[in-house]
C-alpha cells in the first residue's frame, strides 16, 4: 500500500472508532487539536489499526500515532517489520 492509500485506510479506521472525526483532517496537526479524542478513543484507534492491518504497534510508538502523518509513518514501519 502506498503512503496515501495507507493514510486513507487509517482515516477509515479513525472514523469507525471516533464517529465524531471531521471530514477534513490536517495530516501534521495532532488529532486532539482537530476534534475530541480521549485516551480511550486513542487506545481503541491503535488496537483497531493493529487488528485491521495484522500488525503489532509497539506501545513506545503510541504517542507518535497522535496525528495522521505520524500514524501513517508508524503503520508503514510496522508493516515493513511484519514482512521481514
Amino acid at each position, binding site marked *: 500500500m502506498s503512503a496515501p492509500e495507507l493514510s486513507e485506510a487509517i482515516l477509515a479506521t479513525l472514523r469507525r472508532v*471516533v464517529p465524531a472525526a471531521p471530514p477534513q483532517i490536517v495530516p501534521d496537526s495532532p488529532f486532539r487539536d482537530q476534534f475530541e479524542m480521549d485516551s*480511550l478513543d*486513542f487506545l481503541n484507534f491503535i488496537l483497531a489499526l493493529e487488528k485491521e492491518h495484522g500488525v503489532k504497534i509497539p506501545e513506545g510508538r503510541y504517542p507518535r500515532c497522535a496525528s495522521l502523518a505520524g500514524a501513517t509513518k508508524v503503520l508503514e514501519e510496522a508493516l515493513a517489520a511484519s514482512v521481514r
Partner: protein
Amino acid sequence: MTDAWVGIRAEIEGPDWTPQNITAFTLTRHVRSGASERVALRWRPRSGPTSTYTYGDLDRAASRFASGLVREGIVEGNTVAILAGRIPELVVAVLGTLRAGAVSTVLFSSFGPDPVLRRLQKGTTHLLVTTPRLYRDKVAPIRDHLPELKQVLVVDGPGRLAALAAQQDPPEGTKDFGAWLAQGDPAFPDADVEAEDPALLHFTSGTTGEPKGVVHVHDAILAHAYTGKRVLGLDAGTRYWCTADPGWVTGISYGIMAPLARGATIFMDEEEFDAERWWENLNAERTEVLYTSPTALRLLRRMHTAGVTGGPFPFLRSVFSVGEPLAHAEAQWGRTVFGVPVRDTWWQTETGCIVVATCWDDDPKDGAVGRAVPGFDVACLHGTAGHEVVAPPGEPGELCVSTPWPSMFRTYLGNPNLYARSFLGTWYLSGDVAQLDAGGWVSFVGRRGDVFKSAGHLISPAEVEDAMLQHPAVSDVGVWGRHDPVAGTVVEAHVVLAQGYAESEELTRDILGFARARLGPALAPRAVRFRTHLPRTPSGKILRKDLGNTQP
C-alpha cells in the same frame, strides 16, 4: 457543627480569622503574609514550555476578572460557567468568580452540546468562559436557548492571562478573554460574603436524565484546606499534581481549592493522558504528591508493562487515588513503580471533600478504601426504607455520613425534595453500598440506584437514553456499563430497532456517531448491542442491571 469541626476550624483558620470568601483563604491570605512570589501554578501547555504563575499573579488576575464581572452587571449569586480544558484561565475565572461573590460552575469540556445545554440552563448561566473551538462546536448551536447568558469570553492562545489585544478576531457574539481581563482592576477586593452563601455549583448524574446541580457554600474551603492537610499532607510549597479534569468535582476541590488553601504549588498539564509525558512530568516537576484515578493507573500500568516507563521517582512522597475502588493489582503495581503505596480515598460531589481515606501517614489495608477522616463519623445502614439501622461490623449497608460538615452540599438546585430525601435523621445517605469492619475500615460493595461509573465518573443511563431515542432507528434503548480492561466500565447501549431498520455495521456506526455528536465522549456509548426487547419490571421500568446478563 460538631465539636470536632470547632477544633479543626481553630487549627486551620488560626486566631482572629473572620473573612468568609474562599478567595480570602486561597489568595489574599498568602499575598498579605508576604508569599505573593511563591509559585501557585505551573502549567504545561499541549506543546511548548511550562509556564509559572505566582500567588501574586493569580491574585491580580482573579481581581481583574472579578472587577470585569461587576462591570458586566454580574451580581452576587449569579452564575459564571466555564467550559474549557486544563488552562490557567480556568483557574483565574473560578477564583475571580468567587472573589466577586458569584457562583462558579465548571463544565467538562468533553460534554457534547446536549449535556452542555442542560447544565447551562439548570445553572441559569449569566456569563460563560470558553475557547473559540468549544464555543463553535458546543455553545453557538444552543445559544438561542440561553436567554440569560449575557456575555461569552473566549480564551484564544491560553496561558497569557491579561493581554491588551486579541490574537485573532473572537467568534461573533463573544469577546476575547485576555483583552477583557486587561481592562480589569488588579486590586479588586474579596466580596464580603457570608460563610453560607453559595459559591460552587457542580453537576452530577442522577437516576433520571436530569443532571443534579449540587450547591456548595464558601465555608466549604475549611473542609478542602483541612483534608488537603490531614489526608493528602499538603503544605506551603508542596509540589502537587492532581490529574483530574476541573470539569469534575475532584479537579476543583483538590485540583484548585485544597492546594491553594494550603499554599502548595499546583502542576497542571493541558494534554490528555499520555504515559510518556506523565512519567516525564513526575520528575521534571519534582512532584511530591500525586492525586490520580484507577483508570489512569490502569493505563500507566499497561504502558509500563509494554516498556513505556519511568522512575525512580525520588521526589514522590505520596500517591492517592479516587473515582472507584482501587483494585489490588493496581495498588501492588503502583507501590513497586512509584516506590510509595497508592492510598485510596472516597467522597462524592455531594460531600464536597474526602470523607473516607487512607491518610498520608496511614498504612493502606488491602481491599479497604480507608477509614473515616478524623472529624467525620460514618456508618453502614441497612433495613427497610425509612427504618434503617446501623449494620453490624462486616455486614453491607448504605454508607452514611453524620451531618453536618462545612463542605456538605446545601441543596440540589431546583430540587429541594430530592435533597430532603438524601438524609435520614442526622445521616447523609450516600447511595453507595459498603461494609465497615470492627476497626473502622471501609470496603465498597456497589452502588444503589440506576447509575454507574465509567472511568471513575458517574453516568446516568437515562440522560444517555434520552439522546439516543432521538435517532429515528432507535425505538427503545437501555444503557448500562460493560466491563472494559482499561476504563473499568464503558457505556453500552442495548438498542431495539424501529420498524423498517435492520442490524448492520453502518447503522451501528451511525447510531454511535449520532449519540457521540450530542453527548460528547464523556457520556456517549462505546458499543451497541441490538435486541428484540429489553428486560423490564411488571411496571415497565427497564431492568438496567440485567441488560448485560440477559439474552437478546
